[in-house]
């Protein structure tokens, strides 16, 4: 959708006429947010839950729909096909607000033409491939996955433009090369029969979902979608979300009350940490980190690559220069490109998974882990632990001893052989500090400090601030140019309160003010990101938050006046306190509400401005009949009827020409390890998925007789991670690790309810108690539905530390990645299971006795095409 956030907000779910929950056990994992689903239900909405397991969410849904884990693109693609085939999409919305009318280039080839791949695909060069393989063994700088560099050249995906640079369109939506025609063709094989055969979903239930969505969308009604990591943690994770976005655009539900896509995030500030931005490839506000891969050696080159000619991202230079001014203050000047060269350059993928391999291979020497527990919650957790043994030093900032802090004394490790110097800095919980957390729908909420940090505990802000001060001191005498960023980094957040200042506590208020932005001329706060400049006269550490601290004394994150809906006076939602993104689409092209019932933001002709119950997500005085200016840049290239302001053409992207590495449209590929062949295409897996074929990351075969069951992981309401395992009240509620198994499989394998079972993959094995329950049901899939599929559910909350303990699911899951965002695949796996406990000394990657011979040569070999012949 063009922004890194949920399009809607929790409270607005109550206005939905239908809610589709898929890839999430909403009631279990986000129970209090779920009350808005229940409110919608009380008002007559239809609640649909699509999931491999019958859960607490299913129990209160109107319709529970079973599905095989890993097949959601077929399910959602099937709905797209049904809507198009039956002409049940929201035609006026689609024609006016999406790129359905855009025209594709003649040389574009779809997966229909090329049996599961798009035009522009290229296999890796032999030489590069060999070099890559060598790099893994030799442990040089390249810890890129072994599947690199399969890529797409996306030039044939681009949409046609006219001589003025405007997108060519066919408003009748009948052109054979228009996006809507392509959608019809692309999804034509996603039939109800195919859905039943691939997903195991009975056709009657699938058709009931289609009918419900269509009946509850349009002018008078809206349908909302909600998902969580059940949709993201796949080698096609981003394309799951894309499929949902296409569907919601076709139904006309984006930007409208009771509609949208609710992304349910699992950590209290995962949105804020992404926004502002502790992810390797991002600067705050969704600006990319500079990279040598894109040859962004100078500010000009960087801006040339990342500034979009049309739409809101034409403002990129203002935001980037303002960040540099916030980072390096007076040292950042026009003459030195605002210290752009102080930013380190990316040379590849430095995300968590490649970094773990780099650590294992000895290239990472020092590791700072704050409030995260990769030795348990990381996938291939034993790889994480063994990688940490190679570190020179390790710093853990946390509340409790945990599997990561004490990796060196885990079962099977010999501390006398581990040279890593380890530090544990005790930190305070949320009650022991003040600051801002950003909830799942982009809302910044300030929390006040309740008590002093207990014992010697410090805040995480204290740790970073004082570490920075010490490093500045250590480098104070350096004249080396490489040390200038440290010397020139502005780092003055001294607390105004003498008591706090004496303790060395920084003022997080001052930090938030800097993130918000200020004039470097007057020092005054800036109220809107529209006031940011690219001439060095403004500083802002993160443009999307501008407005949260609009003047010296107003912290809008601390606003605490709520109401029963948009609550514009409670907290602050980025951007510009908008609660519902792209809300201009809640009005028709002429600016009138699509219906009285779904009125939200509309054009007030008398006042000459957009108005409504939310902050309009549109230039406030740009009239609906404003024409697009041919050849113009920025927002002038959009008409007053183009709601999707972040996009080049102002339209919702049914077809994505740029930005996705693995295809402009979603395609069903099976998970890396599956129990079945891809029934739709010859291409078995995502051709661009990334994998590491090495001994410490053993994969199950693509279809592996040794691992005949589907395995999926999930969270339970009483547990988060190690923290909750230490809380006695919670430990009592979930005393042991368990997994869920259907009764038929339990009988077949002799597994008793409450008894021990051992779950195994090629990577390792873990034990858990068996919960044999009719909530898990076998599915029938395949042509003629001849194949019986059993799915096993496994909570991932357990580990060794705390008052409740158990093996962790992370020890079963080998690392692989989606090519777009480097997310691992942990929601759709294969495994074996047997009654009884595992060996006392767990089979794992440290054990030299791991029988490599047990691995099937076919499974280890190429698996991307069907020619790779799964040996099942």
């Amino acid at each position, binding site marked *: 959708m063009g922004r890194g956030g949920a399009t809607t907000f929790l409270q607005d779910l109550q206005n939905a006429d239908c809610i589709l929950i898929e890839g999430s056990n909403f009631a279990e994992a986000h129970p209090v947010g779920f009350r808005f689903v229940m409110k919608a239900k009380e008002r007559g909405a239809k609640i649909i839950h699509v999931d491999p397991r019958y859960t607490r969410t299913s129990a209160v849904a109107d319709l529970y729909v079973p599905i095989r884990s890993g097949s959601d693109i077929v399910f959602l693609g099937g709905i797209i096909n049904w809507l198009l085939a039956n002409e049940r999409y929201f035609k006026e919305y689609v024609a006016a607000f999406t790129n359905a009318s855009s025209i594709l280039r003649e040389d574009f080839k779809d997966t229909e033409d090329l049996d599961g791949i798009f035009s522009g695909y290229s296999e890796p060069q032999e030489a590069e491939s060999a070099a890559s393989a060598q790099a893994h063994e030799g442990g040089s700088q390249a810890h890129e996955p072994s599947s690199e560099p399969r890529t797409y050249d996306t030039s044939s995906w681009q949409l046609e433009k006219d001589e003025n640079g405007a997108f060519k369109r066919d408003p009748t939506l009948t052109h054979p090369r228009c996006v809507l025609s392509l959608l019809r063709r692309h999804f034509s094989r996603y039939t109800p029969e195919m859905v039943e055969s691939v997903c195991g979903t009975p056709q009657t239930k699938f058709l009931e979902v289609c009918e419900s969505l269509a009946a509850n969308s349009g002018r008078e009604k809206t349908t909302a979608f909600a998902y969580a990591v059940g949709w993201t943690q796949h080698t096609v994770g981003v394309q799951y979300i894309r499929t949902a976005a296409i569907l919601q655009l076709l139904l006309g539900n984006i930007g409208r009350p009771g509609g949208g896509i609710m992304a349910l995030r699992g950590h209290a500030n995962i949105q804020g940490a992404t926004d502002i931005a502790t992810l390797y490839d991002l600067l705050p506000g969704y600006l990319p980190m500079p990279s040598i891969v894109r040859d962004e050696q100078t500010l000009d080159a960087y801006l040339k690559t990342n500034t979009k000619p049309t739409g809101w991202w034409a403002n990129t230079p203002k935001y980037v220069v303002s960040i540099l001014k916030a*980072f390096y203050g007076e040292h950042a000047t026009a003459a030195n490109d605002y210290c752009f060269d102080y930013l380190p350059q990316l040379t590849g993928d430095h995300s968590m998974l490649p970094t773990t391999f780099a650590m294992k291979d000895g290239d990472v020497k020092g*590791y700072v882990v*704050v409030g995260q527990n990769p030795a348990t919650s990381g996938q291939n957790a034993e790889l994480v632990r063994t990688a940490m043994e190679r570190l020179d030093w390790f710093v853990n900032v946390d509340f409790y001893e945990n599997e990561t802090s004490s990796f060196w004394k885990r079962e099977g490790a010999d501390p006398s052989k581990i*040279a890593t110097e380890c530090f544990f800095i005790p930190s305070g919980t*949320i009650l022991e500090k003040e600051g801002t957390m950003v909830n799942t729908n982009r809302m910044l909420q300030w929390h006040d400090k309740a008590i002093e940090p207990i014992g010697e505990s410090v805040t995480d802000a204290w740790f970073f601030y004082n570490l920075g001060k010490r490093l500045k001191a250590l480098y104070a005498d350096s004249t080396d140019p490489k040390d200038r960023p440290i010397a020139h980094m502005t780092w003055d957040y001294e607390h105004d309160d003498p008591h706090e200042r004496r303790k060395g506590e920084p003022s997080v208020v001052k930090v938030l003010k800097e993130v918000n932005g200020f004039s470097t001329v007057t020092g005054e706060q800036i109220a809107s990101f529209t006031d940011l400049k690219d001439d060095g006269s403004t500083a802002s550490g993160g443009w999307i938050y501008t407005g949260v601290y609009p003047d010296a004394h107003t912290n809008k994150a601390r606003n605490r006046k709520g109401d029963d809906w948009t609550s514009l006076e409670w907290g602050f939602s980025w951007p510009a306190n908008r609660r519902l993104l792209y809300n201009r689409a809640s009005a028709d092209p002429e600016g009138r509400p699509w219906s009285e019932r779904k009125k939200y933001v509309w054009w007030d002709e008398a006042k000459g401005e957009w108005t409504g119950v939310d902050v309009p997500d549109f230039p406030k005085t740009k009239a609906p009949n404003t024409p697009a200016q041919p050849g113009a840049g920025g927002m002038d290239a959009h008409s007053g009827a183009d709601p999707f302001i972040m996009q080049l053409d102002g339209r919702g992207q049914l077809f994505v020409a740029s930005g996705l590495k693995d295809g402009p449209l979603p395609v069903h590929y099976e998970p890396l390890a599956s129990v079945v062949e891809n029934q739709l295409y010859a291409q078995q897996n995502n051709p661009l998925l990334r994998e590491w074929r090495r001994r410490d990351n053993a994969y199950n075969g693509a279809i592996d007789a040794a691992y005949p069951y589907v395995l999926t992981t999930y969270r339970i309401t009483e547990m988060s991670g190690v923290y909750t395992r230490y809380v006695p009240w919670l430990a009592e509620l979930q005393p042991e690790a368990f997994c869920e198994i259907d009764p038929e499989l339990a009988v077949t394998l002799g597994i008793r309810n409450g008894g021990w079972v051992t779950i195994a993959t090629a990577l390792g094995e873990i034990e858990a108690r068996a919960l044999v329950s009719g909530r898990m049901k076998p599915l029938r899939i395949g042509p003629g539905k001849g194949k019986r599929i059993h799915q096993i559910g496994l909570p991932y909350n357990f580990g060794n530390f705390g008052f409740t303990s158990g093996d962790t699911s992370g020890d079963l899951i080998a690392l692989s990645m989606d090519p777009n965002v480097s997310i691992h695949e942990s929601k759709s796996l294969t495994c074996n299971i047997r009654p009884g406990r595992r060996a006392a000394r767990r089979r794992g990657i440290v054990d030299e006795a791991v029988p490599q011979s047990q691995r099937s040569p076919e499974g280890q070999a190429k698996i991307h095409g069907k020619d790779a012949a799964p040996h099942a």
Partner: protein
Amino acid sequence: MTGYTGNVDSKTTVDLTRILSKTADALGERVGMSPNVASERTRGLRSRIKHARAVHSVCPYCAVGCGTLAYVGDDGTLLDVEGNPDSPISNGHLCPKGSAIFGLTVNSARWTTVKYRAPYSDAWEDRSMEWAMERIAQRIKRTREETFVREKDGKRVNHTIGIASLGGATFGVEENYLLGKLMHSLGVVSVENQARI
């Protein structure tokens, strides 16, 4: 097993069980047999939090962002954590995890001292914060010096992959900003958080 074997907070557990069983006994005697008459003692009881300072906070677990009220006594100790009825998101409700925030914070198993594990040692030992912070800063500097890359393939890189940081989703926006700003200025590129787990 290397799990925690120290001072288990069993008191909470035992007390809870005893209170629950007593309550059950009392209910067994009374319910349905006579009106529930409050005893002299019950009528004399006052809520511990009635006059306590209520501090606005947010639940630290999932991202729904439920509002909490932390009740603090005159002596600055935490008395209780409850849902904030004013929050338009949570309206006073909390899930089991959110209801147990008190136990997350006040917990005898928590580590509240600085600890150090020397190379090849099999035990943690206490150290001072001053010593640990200086030592950490020194180690970061040394590793940075040893692993800093100025150029690659003739292009300016100015980074180190010798240092990595992980974490962000469990702490605040301002803290993330400080972490990112510091790491970028050091040239650290592997800065990651829970968004990718």
